């Protein structure tokens, strides 16, 4: 078992130039010199550059109000930068029609609202970008809805009203809706907010599995550092509207930027991974790592 406090030097730079500059399909989302403000004359982000790599799970972390959800909204076209460029799959997101964008990325927005519909009806909403004006599902759409419900493990709740489900089941239904949208990129904005710890890990395991088996690119804004560190390939660390570090999770953790952003000491904790009967590790490490966090004395 590893018991050490990592407290490295803060990395003041933005995302690494190698990542930011990459104009290749490996960039699922790319922010280039993005400036944004919520109030005229009061800049919130200035010249921000960052990249979300394709084919990986990336977490955007940082204290409240640092701009994590703003990054998501900029990519989703809900907010427009005052300067710079945001690309999704190589396309300037501001120039995409909302329907075109919906073919490239699925977003699970943070919301406490529970729509009054069944699980199946919710998942069917994910097919909306693929439907004609009348909104009628064809055989292919029905198959996609069925597959998405099976994949997210909510097929047995198909006829349940969302209001009857637990928070974890409901969130899986929302993930199924994003799967039915059939995009390579899924963006989750604080997907674990209303979930208990067990449901959080179930959901993150599903996210990991979607990446591993189907090659989905997942970008998520997440508050829980332990979850972000355990389940992400890459981290983007934000503070006060700036990206203070970005890169592979281990490297960013070693740099100390995550701990500095939250004023926490982060202690990795390894334990052997015990294979269940019939399970193989599929290339995963034979130990699993969790993290214990201690507030720094002020």
């Amino acid at each position, binding site marked *: 078992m590893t018991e050490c406090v990592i407290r490295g030097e803060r990395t003041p730079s933005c995302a690494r130039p190698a990542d930011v500059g990459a104009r290749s399909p490996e960039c699922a989302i790319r922010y280039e010199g993005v400036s944004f403000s919520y109030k005229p004359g009061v800049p919130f982000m200035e010249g921000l550059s960052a990249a979300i790599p394709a084919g990986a799970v990336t977490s955007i972390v940082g204290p409240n109000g640092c701009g994590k959800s703003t990054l998501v*909204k900029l990519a*989703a*076209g*809900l907010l427009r930068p005052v300067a710079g460029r945001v690309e999704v799959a190589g396309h300037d997101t501001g120039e995409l*029609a*909302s*329907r*075109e*964008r*919906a*073919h490239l*990325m*699925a*977003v*699970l*927005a943070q*919301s406490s*609202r529970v*729509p*009054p*519909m*069944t699980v199946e*009806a*919710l998942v069917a*909403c*994910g097919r*909306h*970008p693929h*439907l004609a*004006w*009348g*909104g009628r599902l064809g055989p292919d759409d029905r198959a996609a809805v069925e597959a998405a419900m099976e994949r997210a493990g909510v097929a047995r709740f198909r*006829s349940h009203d969302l209001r009857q489900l637990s928070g974890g089941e409901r969130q899986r239904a929302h993930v199924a809706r994003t799967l039915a*949208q059939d995009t390579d990129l899924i963006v989750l904005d604080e997907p674990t907010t209303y979930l208990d710890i067990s449901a959080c890990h179930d959901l993150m395991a599903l996210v990991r599995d979607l990446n591993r088996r189907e090659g989905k690119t997942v970008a998520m804004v997440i508050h829980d550092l332990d979850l972000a560190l355990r389940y992400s390939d890459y981290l983007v660390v934000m503070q006060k509207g700036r990206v203070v570090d970005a890169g592979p999770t281990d490297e960013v953790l070693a740099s100390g930027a995550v701990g500095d952003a939250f004023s926490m000491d982060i202690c990795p904790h390894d334990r052997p991974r015990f294979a269940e009967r019939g399970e193989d590790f599929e290339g995963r490490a034979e130990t699993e790592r969790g993290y214990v966090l201690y507030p720094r004395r002020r």
Partner: protein
Amino acid sequence: MGSVSRNIIVVAATAIFLAAATAAALTLGASSVSLPELAAWLVGGDVSDMARNILENVRVPRVLAALLAGAALATSGALIQACLDNPLASPNVIGVNSGAGLAVLLAASLVPGALWLTPLAAFIGALATALIIFALSLGTGLSRLTVVLAGIAITTVFGAGMNTILIVDPDAYIGSSTFLVGGLSGVLMRDLAWPAAYIAVGLVAALAGAAKLNILSLGDEAAHSLGVNVRAVRLGMLAVAAVLAGAAVSFAGLIGFVGLVVPHLMRFFVGHDNRWVVPASALAGAAFVVGCDLLARVLFAPYELPVGILLAFIGGPFFIYLILKNKGGGLD
């Protein structure tokens, strides 16, 4: 039973109820017309002159007016509730009917006798009010209850405007007292031609946009991420709601609560899928107003209540029920 089968049965049952209410409304009244006479008139057979006269000049225009007003107001209510995500909203509660009413009286006073202008003015008045409420609910982040209170304030101001017009120009609108509470007595076929066209277009547009309203119920951000132009859909469907409410007000006056009561009732039976709520509300709204208008005619015969008064007796308590039902959450 699957939800689709259940909903088909509900819609079919509502259609049968509408047919029964329509037959009853055409035959019952101060001078009754028998069912065989009605059937004979429908197929162009032999009918007494009196029965023909009653049907063609009194009952048919009135029942047609009730059908159109009910379908339009109930559908308008369903659209407004979905667009504003507010269970308490309806054309009369948020002031859309009053906006239409003020515009109708203003048009009648300024351009007397222009039948074509009445529904157009009503639409413009209804749309302007809907846009004010939309801007208030979006721009200021008002709670659902505050939107309703704003609607009450708008209704009060527009009510004062209508009363001012009727005092300054008492001949502007014949039957103004019935207009102010909502009633269908004295409606003629020629009054219905233009509004019927508006309502037909409005109902088709409401049905076409119902699927998009389902996506809006996921929340603005989710709807946007699914490729829906949230603001355009909301504005478009509010405009459709204004067309429907305005057209109904133009000949039926300020009939209230149909747009509040009926969509809630139909959601109880068909769920929240707007592709079912919209057609079911149109049918049930038509049946509801036809039935209420019949009751208003026969309850205190030989006296006749304007149907708006009877609807207010039903709708007022229902509105209080909704407030109590939603007090634990959802209003703020």
